[in-house]
């Protein structure tokens, strides 16, 4: 082992002290300043929201089996898709990889004892929970029906639902993202172990860094948009409603200025996870380290310049459309480069098919499809047909579920032995990965066809000729739902009954694998030092595992 001076001890019969068993009692969790415990607080919270948001999706897919709507009134259906979107995006996807895996891994990967601001980190979680409480209040008190996009003047003047508590919940939660981003940026700049230069950092840290920049620069704009919405809805200040002298499209500019980069908040961390998993299970240095690192930064920068592609059919100037179309095509290039580099990493590797690798390979395939279908939407003339239809729904689910959720699950399987100290049953994990892959494609592929045929999104009922494809999609969703339940069960099972994992069950490089699993409270028994690049699999001792 050449990357650090610390050598992990063998697992001992008596359980050594680690961050999980060093203290007990609810106070030791709710007042913890340990980044690893805060990561687990986030893990429990976002898992809760994932299954709430997933339940809304299940109800929607059952409803859409029948063209007339099988289950609920249209008003209720509108609330289902709105709350599915709000919960999944703001309370699951955005915090998922950064707040759980990022929180756990950023200090471990750079060889630090904790994040730069441990109290701020705990505060982030409390802010997140407070925001979640407001949003859950709106759900319980009748729900909100504006769509997660809150388009004005519908949201500010016409909607008769719990717009204010839902928007307030998102407004508050945004500050949690900002503080997390701030914490990561400072930590990565100031707390790297001796010898951990920028170009020796694991690529996961590059993607966390790029994501943090978007958190800090983008989220305030969403806060502004929601605050202005609040002013107009509550005090009738004319900002967006034409009857009050406002401009309805201004909201869309402000909203997408954050919410398009937010897509990259969800996908960049997943790309970081994939960049860790693929080298480990190919036992090879990643292909084109610097290219992948800089393409993360390029994506983060470009993400702020493409929001207008959501507005090609609003009547904006055709020249504005031209500029946004060109910039949107430019985002495709660093994304394509990443895919080619991950694939090239497999070349002449030593590839094993463990569960994290299956998720990672699934990610590459599905992200490729999600990214390529973006070409239809960056192209001005084809976007006219597809904008606002199920094609959009399919496209962003390929990115956010096929991409971000597959990346998150891959990461959870990869680092679960480190987090819990236990192994999960591998056969079940591979089975779940396969079920999720099949269920996902069956759910969302038909939606590309529905959109091209012209079925608009957010329809509580629809013309009968679209039924066949809708039933296919609903069938796929039932498979996908089962696929997501299986990991929940075996992760919970493994915490008590799983075999002891040992410090480095995958034979991976990286500082986080050179400390016991679960790690001690202060992460490392001795401060590590780094002498080599990341992913130095070629020089790893044979027979380590």
């Amino acid at each position, binding site marked *: 082992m050449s990357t650090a001076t610390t050598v992990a001890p063998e697992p001992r019969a008596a359980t050594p002290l680690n961050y999980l068993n060093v203290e007990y009692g609810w106070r030791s969790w709710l007042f913890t300043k340990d980044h690893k415990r805060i990561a687990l607080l986030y893990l429990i919270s976002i898992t809760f929201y994932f299954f709430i948001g997933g339940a809304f999706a299940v109800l929607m897919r059952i409803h859409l089996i029948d063209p007339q709507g099988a289950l609920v009134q249209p008003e209720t259906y509108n609330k289902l898709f709105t709350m599915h979107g709000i919960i999944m995006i703001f309370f699951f996807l955005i915090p998922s990889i950064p707040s759980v895996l990022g929180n756990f891994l950023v200090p471990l990967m750079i060889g630090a004892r904790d994040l730069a601001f441990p109290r701020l980190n705990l505060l982030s979680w409390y802010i997140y929970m407070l925001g979640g409480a407001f949003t859950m209040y709106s759900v319980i008190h009748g729900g909100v029906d504006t769509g997660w996009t809150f388009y004005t003047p519908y949201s500010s003047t016409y909607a008769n639902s719990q717009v204010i508590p839902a928007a307030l919940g998102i407004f508050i939660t945004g500050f949690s993202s900002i503080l997390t981003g701030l914490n990561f940026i400072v930590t990565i700049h100031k707390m790297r172990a001796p010898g951990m230069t920028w170009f020796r950092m694991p690529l996961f840290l590059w993607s966390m860094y790029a994501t943090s920049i978007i958190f800090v620069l983008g989220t305030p704009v969403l806060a502004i948009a929601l605050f202005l919405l609040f002013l107009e809805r509550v005090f009738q200040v004319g900002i967006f409603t034409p009857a009050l002298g406002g401009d309805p499209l201004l909201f869309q500019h402000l909203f997408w200025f954050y919410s398009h980069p937010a897509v990259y908040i969800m996908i960049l961390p997943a790309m970081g996870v994939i960049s860790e998993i693929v080298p480990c299970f190919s036992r090879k240095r990643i292909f084109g380290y610097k290219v992948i690192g800089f393409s993360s930064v390029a994506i983060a920068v470009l993400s702020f310049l493409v929001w207008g592609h959501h507005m090609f059919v609003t009547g904006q100037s*055709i020249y504005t459309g031209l500029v946004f179309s060109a910039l949107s095509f430019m985002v495709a290039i660093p994304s394509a480069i990443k895919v080619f580099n991950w694939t090239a990493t497999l070349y002449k590797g030593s*590839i094993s098919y463990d569960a994290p690798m299956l998720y990672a390979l699934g990610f590459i395939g599905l992200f490729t499809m999600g990214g390529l279908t973006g*070409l239809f939407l960056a192209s001005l*003339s084809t976007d006219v047909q597809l904008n606002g239809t199920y094609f959009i729904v399919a496209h962003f689910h390929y990115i956010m579920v096929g991409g971000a959720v597959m990346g998150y699950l891959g990461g959870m399987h990869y680092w679960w032995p480190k987090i819990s100290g236990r192994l999960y049953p591998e056969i079940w994990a591979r089975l779940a990965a396969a079920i999720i892959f099949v269920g996902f494609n069956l759910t969302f592929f038909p939606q590309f066809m529905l959109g091209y045929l*012209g079925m608009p999104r957010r329809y509580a009922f629809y013309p009968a000729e679209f039924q066949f494809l809708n039933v296919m999609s609903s069938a796929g969703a039932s498979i996908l739902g089962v696929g997501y339940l299986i990991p929940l069960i075996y992760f919970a099972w493994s915490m008590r009954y799983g075999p002891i994992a040992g410090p480095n069950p995958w034979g991976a490089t990286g500082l986080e694998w050179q400390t016991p699993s679960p790690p001690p409270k202060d992460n490392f028994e001795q401060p590590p030092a780094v002498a080599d690049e990341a992913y130095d699999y*070629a020089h*790893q001792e044979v027979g380590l595992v």
Partner: protein
Amino acid sequence: MPNAMFQNIPFHPDQASSIARSVDQLHFVITGITLFFTFLIFSTICYFMIKYRRRSRDERPANIEGSLPLEIAWTLIPTMICAGLFIWASSQYFANAKAPDGAIEVFVTGRQWMWKVQHPEGQSEINELHVPLGRPVKLTITSEDVIHDFFIPAFRVKKDAVPGRYTSLWFTATETGRFHLFCAQYCGAFHAGMEGWVIVMEPNEYERWLNSGASGETLEAAGQRLFQERGCANCHVEAGGGRGPSLRGVFGHPVRLANGLTAAVDESYLREAILTPNSHPVAGYPPIMPAFQGQLDEEQILDLIAYIRSLRNEGEAQP
């Protein structure tokens, strides 16, 4: 019901407008690119997974750092594909942006949850749009409440209906029949019910339809009546010399504003000039016109615009 489900499953939308075929060509080319690269990545991954599967726990593959020629190749190839698609799609979009001269003008107003369609001849309809085959039709679109979106999948056209402003789209129908018309921007409880039909008719049938039924007065006539009733004619004296400019022959021409700029007089300009006249007074006239914001509904504004459009100079063709 289950049997009905498997009947008439469409796999591509009707191509019923002059642009549908060319938009579809681009659509299919991008589909081809998507399938090609998806297949390339999937098959490469599968091939590597099998060929380089781990055969022994002690395997240590050689280090491969990367390859500059490869990086350049797979940067340039996507860049060239993207540039090609950008040029193709944008030129299509630009070519289709402006309605041809002599298009039939129809006004569309969206409101929760219906489409109101006004033909200049006075015919009005709800959730239906009758158009003739083979003639360009230009829709001027607005909304009375929230943002809607006027979408005819078979024509490959879509445009938001935005309250407080006009947007427009145009098409030439190339097939007779009934085609879906959808609202494609979420607009509240019965968004899904804000749908209807575009009915494309043979031109002579269309003429018969246009002249049938008790279609009150034309928009132009209604506008002329409003112009008198609301006192517009007191200042905007047609012969000139009134407190406001004469409106004869202004439509379709530039006008000089008091701030030194020029503006093109089109539907959007007239709409603003009626509702909030003092936001850009015309050069040479004092800003004394009262604002009609809140005084006129969308249909009355359209009537007035139709009337002002009709005030052409002698011998001038319809703009």
